[in-house]
């Protein structure tokens, strides 16, 4: 491994899920389990149908282009990519090629990998339409056209990644951007993200800025999860190094392979020589669209706070640790939950503690999404209030929260139902403290001889007697005062 440098380039396809309608079709852009329920005539390419470009899909892709620091073209064009496949009803995909320029070219994006900041260069990002999906049965296949025409963003990077870690960190950053910018749910479980990866190796002492030093590019098609990307890259690196060591690398032709999840290997598909000629030409039914500066500026002003900016706010304004802030922004839905809790009036640090310590654990344990939770940000805020006003102890609150998550009752209702309240008055607690001291007179001397932790034992006894309703901090203070009096 030390002898070689790895160059990895990515093509990341992400469906734009956050528009109402498809990109060139006015059918609903939504996920459906029932086949052929989101169809307008063009989605099945009935004769005489024409594409009509969705403004919102243009804006979303423009936003991605701006976030990736790309250059935007003067006019938007689309091109036809012609080939035959059963999932492609028109016999061509409407997409954007590099000439005329697509919605974004020559950008770059900073991302973090294992705590280090890196930069990846973007060759281009373009807007296109997704294909239909096919289901396979033993003796035939079927076609569902729901996905046909769903807007798709394809992002093409330069081969700037040197490890699977870097490639996956970049993809995670991109997914976060798509989610935070309200472009896509970017959910690979729904098939919204698909990647092609190209991998080559070169001698480590050579200059990677010179293209002639690069190795032979192997493209791996259709990797549908980030885990798959990692495994495919690592497998391919190993395979190519073995070829090198066996002096067979130079015979390897530029080729396309596919990732086979079952066998965890890449499988040869075709050589570069057999590459399909897609006969691209400009789509005549979509007139070129002048991209006004004002539109670009409008879209720029609409870019929401992305994960990194939110994280800065959490650390600098809310005083959270880098660790907690990182956890909170990892998924937009969690960060949104956190912010909604604060908006409801909760103190940020407390909200963060509750979410990172209890709620996320609950989600992980039960494989849930935060949006599935019964407990809303407002309920969480109410619970935090109950603790702040000393109505219940934080220990009680934890129990309430767990119960609420399980039973779908609001925390406030649970507290009311169980008649829970914290014994908050000093006089009430003092009574119990004195009782306990009487039962354990030896503890006074033990404390005075330096065994300070005996207090924990005493507090525990109070808790037992009050079934957890005493305020522990107050109880401890009372013990110390009382012992020192004697």
């Amino acid at each position, binding site marked *: 491994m030390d002898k070689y440098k790895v160059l990895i380039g990515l093509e990341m396809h992400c469906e734009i899920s956050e528009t109402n309608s498809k990109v060139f079709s006015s059918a609903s852009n939504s996920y459906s389990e029932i086949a052929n329920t989101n169809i307008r*005539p063009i989605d*099945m*390419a*009935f*004769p*005489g*149908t*024409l*594409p*009509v*470009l969705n403004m919102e899909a243009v804006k979303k892709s423009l936003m991605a282009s701006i976030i990736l620091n790309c250059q935007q073209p003067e006019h938007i064009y689309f091109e*036809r990519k*012609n080939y*035959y496949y*059963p999932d492609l*009803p*028109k*016999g*061509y995909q409407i997409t954007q090629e590099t000439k005329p320029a697509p919605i974004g070219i020559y950008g770059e994006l900073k991302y973090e990998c294992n705590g280090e900041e890196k930069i990846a260069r973007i060759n281009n990002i373009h807007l296109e339409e997704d294909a239909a999906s096919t289901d396979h049965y033993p003796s035939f296949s079927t*076609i569902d056209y729901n996905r046909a025409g769903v807007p798709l963003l394809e992002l093409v990077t330069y081969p700037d990644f040197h490890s699977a870690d870097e490639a996956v960190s970049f993809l995670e950053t991109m997914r976060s951007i798509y989610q935070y910018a309200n472009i896509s749910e970017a959910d690979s479980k729904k098939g919204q993200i698909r990647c092609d990866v190209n991998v080559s190796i070169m001698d480590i002492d050579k200059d990677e800025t010179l293209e002639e030093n690069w190795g032979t590019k192997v493209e791996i098609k259709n990797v549908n999860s980030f885990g798959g990307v990692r495994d495919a890259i690592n497998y391919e690196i190993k395979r190519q190094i073995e070829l090198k060591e066996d002096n067979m690398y130079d015979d390897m032709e530029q080729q396309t392979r596919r990732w086979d999840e079952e066998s965890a290997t890449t499988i040869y598909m075709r050589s570069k020589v057999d590459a399909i*000629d897609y*006969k*691209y*030409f400009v789509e*005549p*039914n*979509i*007139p070129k669209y002048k991209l006004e500066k004002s539109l670009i500026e409008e879209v720029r002003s609409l870019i929401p706070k992305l994960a990194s900016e939110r994280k800065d706010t959490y650390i600098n304004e809310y005083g959270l640790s880098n660790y907690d802030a990182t956890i909170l922004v990892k998924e937009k839905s969690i960060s949104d939950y956190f912010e909604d809790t604060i908006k409801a009036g909760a103190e940020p640090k407390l909200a963060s503690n509750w979410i990172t310590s209890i709620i996320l654990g609950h989600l992980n344990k039960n494989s849930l999404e935060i949006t599935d939770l019964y407990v809303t940000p407002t309920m969480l805020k109410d619970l935090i209030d109950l603790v702040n006003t000393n109505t219940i102890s934080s220990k009680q609150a934890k129990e309430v929260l767990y119960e609420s998550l399980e039973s779908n009752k609001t925390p406030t209702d649970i507290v009311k139902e169980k008649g829970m309240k914290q014994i908050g008055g000093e006089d009430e607690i003092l009574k119990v403290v004195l009782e306990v001291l009487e039962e354990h007179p030896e503890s006074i001397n033990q404390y005075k001889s330096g065994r300070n932790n005996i207090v924990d034992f005493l507090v525990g006894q109070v808790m037992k007697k009050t079934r957890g309703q005493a305020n522990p901090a107050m109880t401890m203070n009372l013990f110390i005062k009382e012992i020192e009096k004697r």
Partner: protein
Amino acid sequence: MKYMNKSIEELHELLVNKEVTSKELIEESIELSKKVQGECNAFVTILEDAKEQEVTDNLLSGIPYGIKDNYSTKGILSTGSSNTLKDYVPFFTATAIKNLEKANAVAVNKTVLDEFGMGGTGTTGHTGTVLNPWDKTRMCAGSSSGSACAVASGVYPYATGSDTGDSIRKPAAYCGIVGYKPTYGMISRYGLFAFASSLDHCGVLTRSVKDAAIVTDNMKGIDKNDMTTWDSSNINLYKSLTGNVKGKKLCYIKEICNLENYPNRSEELNNHLVNFFNVIEKVKELGIEVEEVSIDKTLLNAIPSTYVVISCAEATSNMSNLTGIVFGPREDANNYIDMIKNYRTKGFSSLIKRRFVIGSYVLQSQNKDRYFHNAQRVRRLLVDEWNKLFESYDGVILPVGSGPALKLDNSSNNLDKETQLLEEHLQVGNYGGFPSITIPDGFVSNLPVGINITGKCYDDENVLNIAYAIESTMEYKNQIAKEVNNG
């Protein structure tokens, strides 16, 4: 023939005065359809159960018409005259036809075309050749062959057409009627089976300029289903026909229409061009200035190959949806590739298949610049030349074709090289999306010939008004085909 030889205005008046009913008109039109089908083979489908419509203020209400069979019509067989769609019954109607439905117009048949509009002979439709009603040994030209034949035969006052190269304007000339394609995007193409999208236009075939104006007023309009349409609500073609053309200016291109370009000209060509210049004299008498202009011959000679390259390339892509998977007579096979291949091999005529191969060749990455992009470049140069003319002139006036309808027995697409420019120059109207109208301007060998006026984009009112004035100087308005026997 009782009514169907009349103009739209006349029919409307009869209907309003209750001298005839919509039902009677439809019955007559269907009867005539059957007769013309027997004689000329003009229709794919005759809609025998066509329902009468209420007569309203709209001039088209209650009046029968024909639809070229490449317009999608809900619940009605729509074949594009191709075996690939010989059983296709759409569930939606083309916007232009919907607009006519809103006007209470009554469709009585679907007319034959050259398969998907590719071809100019009327011989490649899957139901057979369309014969010229003036002389059954001759072609109607195409691709709107059935529409031209039916309107000329007096089946109804108008039929829709489509025009990618000259598919409305050439058959109109061969059949002695009016053929008009308005500016690109004035009539929605939604529901028109695509041939070459950047050249395809919807339009109409009628027996008078006024009828063309009335029908187009009703077909046109911006359409949310066609991004290339534009708002033409401020254009009223019918009302703009004043006949006042004093001070207008037209030009003709000498490289195309002067006799000396054709030293070996046939008698028919000679008479056609002589007739053209006689008509020019009449045009001048209207107070229109007509001047001769010149355009680089090399550029003009590039018109036909530019057309072949662009139209074949777009067509091969446009017709990739024809696989037999979702619609069309599917073929059996063990795998989808053979299934599609069997369907396409069987379904398409030889001409189309050859054009697909050409279209595919010119789009290959190693050929694209030399063929496809160069053709697109020449397209721009030609459009620029015409637009330059439109800076000084209201329109270009030129003869259509090299004479009357060609004989069917030598209708091959390999036309005489010398007259190719005369045959193909109307394609420039499609390159630039220009409004372009053909009207009958005389007879050669007892057969009708036509003249064309083409103007600048969005200037349809002016172009039609000029055509209207010129039409009034001649006696061919509203003529019905009379079979002639030239022996």
